[in-house]
């Protein structure tokens, strides 16, 4: 048991418990809904999850530093519209260039957030509440309140959601979830193995200690916001590919789903702990709930209420579980070695 405790960090345990909750949810829906276990359901859910996951990864970076980015929905909407408008004018554009453009636009908006928070010393919730409205306003102004229609877009982007990367039996991993999964894997490793990633945890865990350890927090925070913006920009491209029709309302309300996904996935709202793997699991749970409740054709109001309830239950269960387990799991005592210390400093 001691060995298991040593080798399995608490965070993994938390993620395992989320997988368990997810399975329970899926079994419940499978009993309630006919033809639930079909590739159709899987694809529907996975494309919703793709968008939430992608942005939730960025949100996780920001949350880790004890900040929050509420402008992600507006950044997704703005980028989606801008890319759509651009594509309707220029037919021949490679997907890679478009993705780079998406991340560039989003990254620039994220950079503004980051600079205001880190160097302007304005609380993140205020800054991003402001830029949430500003970026949305910029979208309305730029679009002149007109929409991008699906028929204006080149075929390749419309077909992107049907693109299959990998097939296992009847189930297929399509392009959009593939992009999200790629982002999760990349940032999983960045957070675990790069010193940038570790310093994000340090800053959120104890800003004071980070300062004394000589960590330049403003630079890290700015970078986190910029990456969050870039991922939201990429989210804008995913949004465009998935829906085709982009109105000024695109991406509105996404920020709440994204923050919910991260928090359900065990990312601490007070910074310092959580992983993108958890955020992804949170996104899967939220995406599954949303799409399944739509399938059950419940009234819109009840759908939101049930989702809200599920989120609260998931987080409370996780809290209770973790609080019970923590002292027992990460029990560590200071053991003095029997002999006198021999320091060779």
């Amino acid at each position, binding site marked *: 048991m001691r060995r298991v405790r040593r080798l399995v960090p608490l965070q993994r345990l938390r993620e395992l418990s989320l997988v368990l909750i997810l399975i329970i949810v899926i079994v419940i829906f499978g009993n309630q809904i006919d033809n639930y276990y079909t590739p159709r359901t899987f694809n529907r859910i996975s494309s919703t999850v793709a968008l939430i996951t992608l942005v939730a990864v960025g949100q996780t970076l920001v949350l880790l530093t004890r900040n929050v980015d509420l402008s992600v929905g507006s950044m997704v909407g703005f980028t989606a519209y801008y890319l759509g408008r651009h594509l309707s004018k220029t037919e021949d554009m490679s997907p890679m260039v478009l993705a780079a453009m998406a991340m560039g636009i989003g990254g620039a908006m994220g950079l503004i957030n980051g600079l205001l928070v880190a160097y302007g010393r304005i609380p993140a919730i205020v800054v991003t509440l402001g830029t949430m409205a500003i970026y949305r306003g910029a979208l309305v102004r730029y679009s002149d309140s007109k929409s991008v229609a699906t028929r204006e877009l080149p075929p390749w982007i419309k077909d992107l959601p049907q693109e299959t990367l990998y097939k296992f039996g009847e189930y297929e991993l399509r392009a959009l979830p593939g992009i999200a999964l790629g982002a999760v894997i990349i940032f999983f490793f960045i957070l*675990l*193995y790069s010193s940038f990633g570790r310093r994000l945890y340090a800053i959120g*865990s104890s800003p004071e200690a980070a300062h004394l350890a000589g960590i330049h927090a403003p630079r890290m925070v700015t970078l986190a916001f910029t990456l969050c913006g870039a991922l939201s920009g990429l989210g804008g491209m995913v949004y465009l590919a998935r829906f085709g029709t982009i109105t000024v309302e695109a991406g509105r309300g996404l920020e709440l789903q994204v923050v919910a996904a991260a928090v359900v996935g065990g990312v601490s709202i007070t910074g310092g702990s959580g992983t993108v793997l958890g955020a992804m699991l949170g996104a899967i749970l939220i995406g599954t709930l949303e799409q399944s409740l739509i399938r059950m054709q419940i009234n819109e109001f009840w759908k939101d209420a049930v989702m809200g309830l599920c989120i609260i239950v998931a987080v409370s269960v996780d809290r209770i579980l973790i609080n019970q387990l923590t002292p027992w799991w990460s029990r560590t005592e200071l053991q003095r070695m029997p002999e006198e210390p021999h320091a060779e400093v």
Partner: protein
Amino acid sequence: MTADPLLEIRNVSKQFGATKALDSVSLTLYPGEVHALLGENGAGKSTLIKIMTGIHQPDSGEILLQGHPISLHNSAQAQKHGIAAIYQEPLVFPDLNIAENIFISHQRRNPLVRWGKLYRDAEKVLAQLGVALDVRALARGLPLAAQQTVEIAKAISMDVRVLIMDEPTASLSIHEVKQLFALVRNLRKAGVAILFISHRMDEVFEIADRVTVFRDGQFVSMAPVAEVTPERAIRDMVGREIGDIFVKEPSPRGDVILSVKALSREPRFRNINFELHAGEVLGLAGLVGAGRTDVALALFGIAPAHHGHIEYLGKEVHIHSPKQATQMGMVYVPEDRRQHGLVLPMSLMANISLPSVKNYRNQFGMVQHHKEAATAEHYRQQLSIRTSSLSMPAGKLSGGNQQKVVLSKWLNTKPRLLILDEPTRGIDVGAKQEVHRLINDLAQQGLAILMISSDLPEVLAMSDRVLVMREGQQMGIFERHEATQETIMAAAIGQSVEKPVERAAEYA
């Protein structure tokens, strides 16, 4: 001490607002020495540490490392020069594991974390210290001694040359202190210069090679430990100019207002016993962290005591909230008046009537401003609050006048017992005297006053009796004629000078 100095601090000064935190102080550290720095609260020790670790920059003076002037603009630079500090409250990252905590400042050098190597290196560093810790465990919830070990390991991993230890033993058990000292001796052998700050005299005499004393931001003395006696060190620490301080006039000692028996709230304080009479000022002396404020908070119901009895006006009471305490006629004037004492943007008048605002309502429940104004005017005259208008926001007043507003506000509730926490901190000399005169007047009117103060001359001038606390324990109560700066300081740091300190009765 033939070696060249490792670190020299020359004529360093630092001013914060009107207070001179450091006034041209010098200190020299040699390799392989443990240098103790003594001084009471506000002597400038913390400021010096912050300058040495690059958190504050000195206004003037210079710092030399091995003869070369260095400038320290942030803690990263200090670390690069091999200067590290360990604080009384260790600053670990709770969400990172122990290995990461140890090597957090190394990460700049390699952009990638090699976990296997990190764990092995961390184990190696801890082995040097003669301790075994699970380096994969999160630092959250580690006992304080273990956190401190992590901090020391961190310093060692950075090839520390100058190690500052700020009261490292304050929260350690005797066994842990022994371990720490073994470690300090090893570091000394390895040529590290250690600046050791502690209020425990016995520890200083056990470990230190030389002793420097600061007082009020100034250098007082420096001598090899063999030439220093506890008496001399204490005299140097407290030898403060008394100056023109207002001395409380004798007042008739009335009935017992408050009687406290075996009051405890672990780990803050334990077994506190005293009686407080009407018309009496009981001074509560001790160093910062001795638990004085915690006793006040317990009496006032903010953080109630776990054990013991409080008798108030002859009846046993259990106080669980400040509201209850106020209704019983107790008043607590906190140390931080800007944070806890006043609503800064509100007018002076509204601040004064705030706790008793119920009495100012008319039949429709609306506050009657003319009545408020009358009360405020009364106190303005009585306490000579200097303000151009009663509707001036409290935040715009000077410190002394703010303190008078706080006092007015509570006096207006007609209290029987007044608890003052550092009543004159940050107030200029003139206003200080007025506050002292006011305390005197209130005592003459029969109020019972409990006054917490770190300002020894103030304690001596204003108190009828002085209760001294040290690390949560009551060290004794001194009558006015017994109390001197030396006896009180000796009790506060747990050293007896001449008169043996009477220990608080039979504590377990």
